[in-house]
């Protein structure tokens, strides 16, 4: 180990200790990168940091992040979720345990219109919890369904997490989106099966709804369904469909999606000045948080790599006498453990780059690995006692104790573990769709890539940085 590598590893240790104190991670990373970088690399660290920043600011792929976040907030303000929920509730009212199913299906459908978690759990909690309590639903199972369903938003496209993850793994965002769809809906399906079986054998858990909560006729239920669901379905199909068909870049699809969500909100007469302003402000705060963290962790990562510490970790881990499968399982467990204290932006941007070279050396399909990480991190949202979803739900559903919510989440965590094991054992669950769409030639893209775009797909953050550096040197 060289002197510089030792500095790098010290930086990593100090970083982990420092961010546990609770100061905003971005600023801690920036300072440590400057301090240790200056110690190990000299003044060049400042140029390195600057070019990383300007490179990230010029990266048009990441413009999809604020746009998808905005789309999600507009969809939320527009009351799209309430409509979905009401329509499905009327349709399924006579079925045992119907509200569980309605919550999960609403969450899975809304996940296709939003890229973030939090809003979904809160809105579902506000809408579903009172009715579930009134109808005598089991608190644990209900809280579990709401939190589990709500966290699907970070997994099912247009997940912001997957956009940020693409350049970490050096795979295209379209591939990652395609890879997350089947696991996402498989999870929703597993949830539905679980709650249906439980309420079938024990009808007390989720009784059929009382008459006054049912639709007067099947037709009025279908009418509500059409008004509430079809426009949203059109929006989602246009947004995700255009990415998966290779017609639009994620950024273009995000922009169209944001505009479409605005049109829908206006059509539902929900687009007030106040709501619009609120969606703008929330989008600014959230996207600035994610992207500033992306920027500072890239600076940190660049310093870490230049010091030779990244290579040292890769070589050391690869030299361990364990078979590749076990190594991969270890990395997955590590990602899960990290997802416990840290939120996904920190795990993806700060820690994943440290494991990436190891996984890459093992020669596994990185698209599959990305889907595995995504499901693992979604699970972390459901792991008590440090689970954001529990707090979001507790704030709006005062009738349930935190312990009830935790117990419910544990049941769905069990389902998550089954899903992770399935994806691990049968990689095709994740890779089938991207293989079918992009790699087997099943889909011939007729449109040439946009002439004005120099965006390349499947670049790593490091390659983006090198490209922007070349651009700067040309002058």
């Amino acid at each position, binding site marked *: 180990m060289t002197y510089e590598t030792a500095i790098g590893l010290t930086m990593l240790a100090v970083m982990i200790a*420092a*961010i*546990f*104190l*609770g*100061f*905003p991670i971005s*600023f*801690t990373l*920036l*300072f440590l990168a*400057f301090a240790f970088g200056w110690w190990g690399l000299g003044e060049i660290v*400042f140029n390195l940091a*600057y070019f990383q*920043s*300007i490179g990230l*600011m*010029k990266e*048009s792929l*990441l*413009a999809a*992040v*604020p*746009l998808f976040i*905005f789309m999600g907030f507009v969809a939320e303000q527009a009351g799209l979720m309430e409509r979905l929920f009401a329509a499905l509730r009327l349709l399924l009212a006579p079925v045992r345990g119907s509200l569980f199913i309605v919550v999960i299906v609403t969450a899975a459908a809304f996940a296709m219109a939003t890229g973030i978690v939090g809003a979904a759990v809160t809105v579902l909690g506000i809408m579903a919890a009172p009715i579930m309590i009134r109808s005598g639903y089991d608190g644990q199972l209900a809280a579990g369904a709401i939190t589990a369903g709500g966290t699907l938003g970070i997994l099912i496209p247009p997940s912001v997490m997957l956009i940020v993850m693409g350049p970490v793994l050096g795979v295209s965002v379209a591939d990652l989106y395609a890879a997350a769809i089947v696991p996402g809906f498989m999870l929703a399906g597993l949830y539905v099966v679980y709650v249906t079986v439980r309420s079938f054998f024990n009808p007390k858990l989720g009784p059929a709804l009382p008459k006054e909560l049912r639709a007067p006729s099947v037709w009025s239920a279908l009418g509500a369904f059409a008004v509430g669901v079809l426009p949203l379905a059109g929006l989602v199909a246009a947004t995700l469909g255009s990415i998966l068909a290779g*017609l*639009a870049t994620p*950024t*273009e699809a*995000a*922009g*169209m999606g*944001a*505009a479409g969500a*605005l049109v829908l909100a206006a059509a539902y007469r929900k687009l007030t000045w106040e709501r619009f*302003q609120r969606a*703008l*402000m929330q*989008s*600014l*705060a*959230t*996207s*600035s*948080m994610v*992207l*500033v*963290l992306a920027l500072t962790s890239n600076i940190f990562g660049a310093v870490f790599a230049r010091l030779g510490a990244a290579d040292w970790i890769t070589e050391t881990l690869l030299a361990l006498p364990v078979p590749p499968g076990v190594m991969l399982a270890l990395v997955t467990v590590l990602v899960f453990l990290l997802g*416990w204290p*840290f*939120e996904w932006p*920190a795990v993806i941007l700060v820690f994943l780059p440290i494991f990436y070279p190891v996984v890459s050396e093992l020669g596994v399909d990185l698209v599959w690995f990305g889907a595995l990480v995504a499901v693992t991190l979604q699970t972390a949202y459901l792991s008590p006692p*440090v689970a954001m979803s529990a707090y979001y739900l507790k704030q709006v559903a005062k009738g349930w104790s935190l312990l009830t919510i935790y117990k419910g989440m544990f049941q769905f965590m069990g389902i998550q573990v089954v899903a992770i094991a399935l994806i691990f054992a049968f990689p095709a669950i994740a890779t089938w769709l991207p293989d079918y769409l992009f790699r087997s030639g099943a889909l011939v893209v007729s449109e040439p890539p*946009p*002439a*004005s775009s*120099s965006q390349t797909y499947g670049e790593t953050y490091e390659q983006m940085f090198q490209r922007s550096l070349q*651009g*700067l040197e040309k*002058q």
Partner: protein
Amino acid sequence: MAFSLLGAMVRVIDRFAELCGVVIAWLMVPLVAAVVYEVVARYAFAAPTIWSFDVTYMLYGAMFMLGAAYALRVGAHIRTDFFWERWSLRTRGIIDSVAYLAFFFPGIALFFWVGWDEAWYAYEIGEMSEQTPWRPALWPLKACVPLAAALLLLQGVSELTKSLYAALTGRAFGSGA
């Protein structure tokens, strides 16, 4: 007296960050418009623009950089809440005060200084974008780096004051002194 003066300063800085936030948040509107215009022009009229690619990344880059201070104001920058949740207001105040002085101000000040030099250089040589034939000037985008750092430093003064208050009194700032 000293407290009321500090209180006034904190309120002015916070209000300024919120106002800047509103202006910056509105960059989303031209960003959406630029993307939609390009998509419609290309697919419906087969007439792609030469400007939308540059405009898109410039608006996005400016928005998230300049929005950093607003995110700080509303507490959006993520913390590791593993222990944070369990700590008293006083403990949080002490940690934040030390971290602002030791990490935040030196780090962001250096960032400002580097960003300022580069932005000024880009302006002086009239640096232009190499990514498209449109070739817009790059200094406005580059100026966002020092500007974002300056806004962060200003908001940091307000946040440091609040943390010091919490560290000294064990109460949240503005909860009645």
